[in-house]
């Protein structure tokens, strides 16, 4: 769709070679679930040679392994608990349900970003560059930042082909809010014709609108209350994460009605004793691997890993072997499909 629109807008030239066009459409790593690769980014790469480079193999393999870790260790491990909790919410305590929601937030993140990493890694092994699709979204301090870090290729697609053509923020405050709501509602509806997806999109639209409405008031309040910058950052991060989780309840529940019921049960705080959590061993394992993931992502943020992989053979050997050990020991090898295959 973006190719047709870009050609119509004369932003790119029509691709004259059917073979190159077919390669763009059917390029297997991203074919099923993204990242959404635009013609303007990919077609030019098909016009140049792609000689074999071991450097690409090393960094591409690193991404593929990281993607498998996210998928089979974190996402599928969390799925074991999340599925049980959402299939029988009435058996769970408030704390058990809250744990299920938090685990689902990491399940869907690791499931989808894991797939994206594998796709980007495979493309890189073959000498192609795909755009980054996730950038540690749960450390976002605002919802606009969240959407710059979550499924970047979809959010930028919605921005360029929906929000901006609707008028973006050019026609005053009311129209900006309207455009944000329409974009997010349609973004939700894109996942399926179900009220729960509409509510999920609507909630994110509302978060973005409210964030703009509050604007600088939060900054002024922070200054008035002498809240230090670092603490304010953590508070914002926790708030964004909590509200994102609230929206995920609608995304995961079997129906909008069930989602309201789950949120209601959590809000009653009926059963907040850790002893009331079922499958404690698997829950502990899931939080342990999420901890490992967060440490690795923070390390990658501070010390970019690709140059380190190329510079230090010892680091490369032990990090690759280490990921394989973790996958062997903690991976789940059932028949869990990628969540986004259904959309």
């Amino acid at each position, binding site marked *: 769709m973006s190719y047709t629109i870009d050609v119509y807008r004369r932003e790119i030239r029509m691709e004259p070679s059917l073979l190159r066009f077919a390669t763009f459409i059917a390029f297997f790593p991203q074919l099923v679930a993204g990242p959404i690769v635009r013609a303007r980014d990919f077609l030019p790469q098909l016009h140049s040679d792609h000689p074999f480079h071991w450097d690409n193999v090393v960094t591409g393999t690193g991404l593929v392994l990281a993607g498998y870790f996210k998928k089979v260790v974190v996402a599928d491990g969390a799925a074991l608990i999340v599925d049980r909790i959402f299939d029988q919410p009435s058996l769970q305590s408030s704390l058990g349900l809250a744990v299920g929601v938090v685990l689902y937030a990491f399940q869907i993140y690791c499931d989808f970003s894991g797939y994206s990493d594998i796709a980007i890694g495979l493309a890189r092994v073959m000498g192609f560059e795909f755009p980054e699709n996730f950038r540690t979204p749960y450390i976002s301090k605002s919802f606009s930042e969240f959407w710059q870090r979550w499924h970047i290729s979809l959010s930028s697609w919605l921005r360029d082909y929906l929000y901006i053509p609707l008028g973006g923020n050019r026609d005053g405050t009311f129209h900006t809010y309207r455009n944000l709501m329409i974009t997010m509602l349609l973004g939700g509806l894109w996942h399926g014709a179900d009220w729960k997806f509409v509510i999920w999109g609507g909630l994110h639209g509302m978060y973005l609108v409210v964030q703009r409405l509050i604007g600088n008031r939060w900054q002024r309040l922070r200054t008035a209350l002498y809240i230090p910058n670092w603490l304010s950052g953590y508070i914002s991060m926790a708030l964004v994460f909590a509200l994102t989780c609230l929206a995920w309840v609608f995304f995961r529940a079997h129906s909008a009605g069930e989602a309201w019921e789950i949120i209601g049960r959590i809000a009653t705080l009926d059963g907040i004793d850790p002893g009331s959590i079922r499958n404690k061993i698997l829950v502990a394992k899931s939080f342990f691997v999420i901890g490992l993931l967060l440490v690795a992502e923070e390390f990658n943020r501070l010390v970019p890993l690709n140059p380190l992989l190329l510079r230090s053979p010892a680091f490369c*050997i032990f990090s*690759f*072997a280490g990921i*394989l050990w973790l996958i062997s020991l*903690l991976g789940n*090898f059932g028949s869990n499909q990628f969540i986004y295959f259904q959309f």
Partner: protein
Amino acid sequence: MKRGITLLLAVVAFFFGDRIGGGVLENLLYRSPQRFPAMYSGRFDADTVVLGSSRGVMALDQPFAEEQLGKPIANISHNGMPPRIARAIFDDYLEHNRKPKRLIIEVSNVTAPTSEETVLDYKPFWDRSERLRELGQEFSPLTAAASRVTHLYRYNSEMFLRAMSYLASGNSDQASFMRMQITPELIQETEGMEPIKLTADPQEVEALRGIIDDARAAGVDVQLIYAPYLPTYAAKIENLDAFLAELSQCLGQEVHDFSRLLPDTNDFADRVHMNPTGARKFTQQLLDRGILQ
């Protein structure tokens, strides 16, 4: 080319670390006081053995029963354990531990067919149990092959994590309870349930009969029990009496029916599991009826 050698060395490092890690984890596993490492290390010395699924695990107030009897009990039940696995476990018990005098089997697991997922949970013990390994080979040849390639993968199971948590705490899992009370919502949901019909899986009935035969052949007395259900749940089972009568007939031995023993919902953690209060009352019944002796 140098990068290619680096990748090759990563594979070599993986297998080297895998073998060392596998050895360390095996050593840790058999130090755990959890029931199965204890069993495969021959640490049980009991006159009575209890076998079943989670309903077998939660059935007894074991400290109370041991205090009353003045001798230890070995509970080798496990969540979701179907009779085909239970048979392998019981035969392994006889092989590795002193022979008990009595085996008590909670038989409600006969309705759940053995699945790949349950079989694979026992893979940490494949190196000590030919029977469990054969089941693994039957249900998932791929997993059996993978566990030969990577030793760390053998310890990739909830069972292993469970064993490690007991090793860390230093406590045995012989006295397991669901320390919670059934919620009013779940009771209400149970009342609104459609009627249930119990069906025994023929392969599991066969395995249960096999356990009874193996026990008798070893000179072990066998008692079959059916643990209590939440009263509203028991009422939803339309063929409970007929099911138990047929099962008793198939097994050639009476199944002691305690399914409706406890009328008070406060004795339950959920529909099918008792909490400590219920387990104490049920244990007292087993003592009074001479099933526990």
